[in-house]
């Protein structure tokens, strides 16, 4: 590793160092707030160094053949670090009353973040896989962290088994592609594929397996079955990390892979992606209609949103890359805010408040939290003046620019269907506590549990003053700014494009 490569890697190195420091701190003396502060400080320092690295490395800088630091990587590093910061602040509030060991959660969080960071900077199958496993393995522990709760253990086990299977698919796909192209660097794979005369079916099979594995990770239909259960069972901040950082890392890597290998030249692949997108949009929106659990609802909405993002990926081009960047940014902030409200509402209790009927009348007791959740739900629904609308607008623009009318129709229909459950969830916050009116059609509008007097909704009285609340206030400001004055963020996303890579001089020849 030469001298200029160390500053380029500084965000990754800082997070690694923080994880080592946290490990030592836990070994020396357990102290929840100290460990949380060290993690937050380390992540913040990494974010600052990303902001410093970005202008310095405007021309892409490759680290051996494995990693590349360019504006694209810096943008997604920044988004992942913001997500990790918010999640660690929320974890501090969430674990405040937890009786068991609390500090290891931060260590797992840092390692998972590190894996995600490696993934977004990766341009080689090996770093892809290392990053993927480093991202996923701590997540198994994080999801199952509340070992005394059946649902948390179940979520962790489900995620472990399915994620390991997905990783196996990915490795198999990588092996098949490598066997035909002889290289693992993304840019060279594209060049080699263009020259390929036979063995195309093996490459197609490898690409299909890779897509299946990535589909699991991104919870695209029909590989989505784990998502609602894991979101429901995992602790709320962990679910938000799973929903944002891990998916961002995988999607950014997929985007870089598709651009570098020019995969959109192959009609078979484009059709497969389009089918996945339409299925995800339909499944995500339709299955959420009957949900009465807020976390499961957010899980299904995540499935639909990644369907929308896939449409932007299919409609390739510079506008599409910008669209994906904006959408991932707005989606992450919105999801973090929604899970943040769930965290804060649950924090004084010893169980999570998940049922929609338990949120009834939240506005009249905690107007701030209810307003944040309302804004988050409206943003997920895509109502203008919210952050989510900006993302949806960009995706529609990318689709119109490439005349993808079928996919656009799917987005419009999916959004229309999705409005129903977002509105139903949102209005719960404003209803006064009391029995629902007796009417034959109330089952359409109110979850069944709402017919009884719901439990009192709780949250700390001065919720804005502890770490999770502070993070939530920052997220609210970001959501409002993205909706009303998004120009600075658009400039960031615009700068985060990918330049086509020249082929690397070092290629290992494979014996045929």
């Amino acid at each position: 590793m030469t001298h200029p490569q160390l500053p380029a890697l500084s965000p990754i190195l800082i997070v690694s160092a923080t994880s080592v420091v946290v490990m030592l701190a836990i070994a020396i003396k357990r102290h929840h707030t100290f460990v949380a502060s060290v993690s937050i400080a380390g992540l913040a320092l990494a974010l600052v160094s990303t902001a410093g690295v970005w202008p310095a490395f405007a021309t892409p800088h490759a680290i051996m053949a494995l990693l590349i630091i360019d504006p694209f990587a810096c943008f997604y590093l920044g988004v992942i670090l913001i997500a990790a910061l918010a999640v660690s602040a929320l974890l501090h509030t969430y674990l405040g009353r937890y009786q068991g060991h609390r500090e290891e959660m931060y260590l797992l969080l840092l390692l998972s973040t590190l894996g995600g960071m490696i993934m977004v900077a990766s341009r080689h199958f090996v770093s892809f896989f290392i990053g993927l496993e480093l991202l996923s393995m701590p997540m198994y522990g994080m999801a199952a962290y509340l070992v005394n709760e059946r649902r948390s253990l179940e979520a962790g086990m489900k995620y472990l088994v399915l994620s390991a299977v997905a990783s196996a698919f990915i490795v198999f796909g990588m092996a098949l592609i490598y066997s035909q192209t002889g290289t693992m660097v993304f840019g060279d794979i594209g060049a080699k594929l263009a020259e390929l005369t036979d063995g195309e079916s093996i490459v197609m099979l490898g690409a299909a397996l890779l897509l299946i594995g990535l589909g699991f990770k991104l919870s695209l239909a029909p590989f989505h079955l784990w998502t609602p259960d894991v979101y429901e069972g995992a602790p709320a901040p962990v679910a938000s990390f799973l929903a944002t950082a891990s998916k961002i890392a995988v999607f950014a890597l997929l985007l870089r892979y598709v651009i570098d290998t020019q995969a959109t030249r192959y009609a078979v692949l484009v059709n497969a992606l389009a089918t996945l997108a339409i299925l995800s949009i339909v499944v995500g929106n339709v299955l959420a209609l009957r949900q009465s659990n807020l976390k499961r609802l957010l899980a299904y909405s995540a499935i639909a949103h990644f369907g929308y993002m896939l449409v932007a990926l299919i409609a390739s081009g510079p506008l599409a890359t910008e669209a994906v960047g904006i959408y991932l940014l707005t989606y992450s902030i919105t999801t973090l805010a929604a899970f943040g409200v769930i965290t804060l509402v649950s924090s004084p209790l010893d169980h999570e408040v998940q049922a929609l009927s338990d949120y009834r009348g939240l506005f009249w007791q905690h107007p701030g939290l209810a307003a944040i959740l309302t804004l988050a739900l409206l943003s997920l629904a895509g109502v203008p003046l919210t952050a989510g609308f900006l993302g949806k607008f960009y995706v529609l623009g990318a689709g119109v620019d490439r005349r993808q009318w079928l996919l656009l129709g799917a987005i419009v229909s999916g959004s229309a269907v999705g409005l129903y459950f977002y509105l139903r969830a949102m209005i719960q916050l404003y209803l006064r506590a009391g029995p629902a009116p007796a009417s034959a059609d109330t089952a359409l509008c109110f979850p069944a549990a709402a017919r009884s007097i719901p439990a009192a909704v709780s949250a700390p009285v001065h919720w804005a003053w502890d770490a999770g609340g502070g993070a939530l206030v920052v997220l609210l400001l970001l959501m409002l700014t993205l909706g009303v004055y998004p120009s600075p963020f658009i400039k960031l996303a615009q700068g985060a494009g990918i330049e086509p890579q020249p082929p690397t001089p070092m290629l290992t020849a494979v014996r045929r």
Partner: protein
Amino acid sequence: MTLLCLLVVPFIGGSLCCWLQRFGAAHARRVALGTMALTLALAAGLWLSGDYSQTLLPSGASQPGHWAQHFSVPWIPRLGIRFSLGLDGLSLLLVTLTALLGVLAVACSWREIESDAGFFYMNLLWNLAGVIGVFLATDLFLFFLFWEVMLVPMFFLIALWGHDIPGGRPRLYAAIKFFIFTQSAGLVMLVAILALVFAHYRASGVLTFGYADLLATPMSTRTGLWILIGFFLGFAVKLPVVPLHSWLPDAHSQAPTAGSVILAGVLLKTAAYGLLRYLLPLFPAAVAQLAPVAMWLGVLGIVYGAVCAFGQNDAKRLVAYTSISHMGFILVGVFAGTEEALQGVIMQILAHGISAAGLFILCGELYERLETRDLRNMGGLWARFSNLPQFGLFFILASLGLPGLGNFLGEFLILLGTFKTHPGMAMLAAVGLVLSAVYSLILMQRAFYGRSGADSPLPDLDRREFAILSSLMAVTIWLGLYPRPFFEVSRAPTQALQALNSPAATAASTTSIERVVP
């Protein structure tokens, strides 16, 4: 700058109302009333001090047009989006209508809303701010933003303060149906807007959402037709056009009184405004292809709305169906392509807004006293009130189209203008005049005449309600007997639209408005 104030005043006033709730509902009510009165004063000031003889579209052969008032700042330069507002005669009339109905909506909900009045007025005022934004926006992204944003406060109004139908659907059903219908149509319109913007970008290399820049986008007729259909779908759900109207009876009848007044008086008119401001000028070639279909849909709406209205037992639902029927006239008039028809459309917009508001306020007052809106439980009410039935008679006659009142003028001009270019369509639409007499008189008969269930006198209108209804009555009579000020303000936009859409019809319509209305 005044344009920005028109938007900001209701917005800030609404936020203030919500905050004042903790000090008592009376403060919130007064602030809401004061805010809307200030907005009305601003609109009136703009009317009296401005020159509305020009509009942006060129009306003469070589004269370029301009807005009477304009405000524009950059917003998202990457996408060519500016925060730009513009005012001409058409926008001014509609903004004044909005402000007036806003004052009356706040006034009529003085006693009706007991719980969370501050939050109610916040939603009401934010809704009005959104609607004013729709009428003022001259950037297509901003127009779409206000178009969608005005739905959210209305959703809250219907869902939280509306009425459930006893034995029927809860109000949340009506609110969600309203939101889903209008939002998804709006998304189709957004795709059409993006298609237009990208077509302009491909032709000229400039990415912009500005209204003036997009006006003469060169595109093939086929592209223009598809984009036109996208826009038309967005407006058709809001207007509403008959196959897509099923959200309206539920939303209108289950909304609180102030919500119904704003829905019928103003929100439906945003669709008519959209047709006049965006649909006709942006796609003149494709409009000629769509016109027969649209006019047939208009006639269908007139007849269907009237027939359904006749069969209703719920008074508010009956009035809601009459709105569908009146909006059918507007649809016919917009696509007729003559200046008389367009002037008639604008007059119908104003007159229907006022008369529908009056009818909904009356229904609300009857409900407050009788605890029912079912016509089967009413009857013989003329003897039990001293003032309310007279107002009822007046507004029902206005809705019927009695000459001398504004609605007659609007419908007559539309028919006159349509007859010049599509005589058969005008004859069919005129059937609507007969049907409107039928449903109006049946409403009058069932509610106020006939056998009554009890004989005791009921509490009559108090001073506040008397003032509201008298002012509505005064405006209706003014529209019917002395419409000259309104026609003068709207002359420039209608002439420009007519010149744009049917140059052949310019020769045909030698009758100017002065000869029809001296």
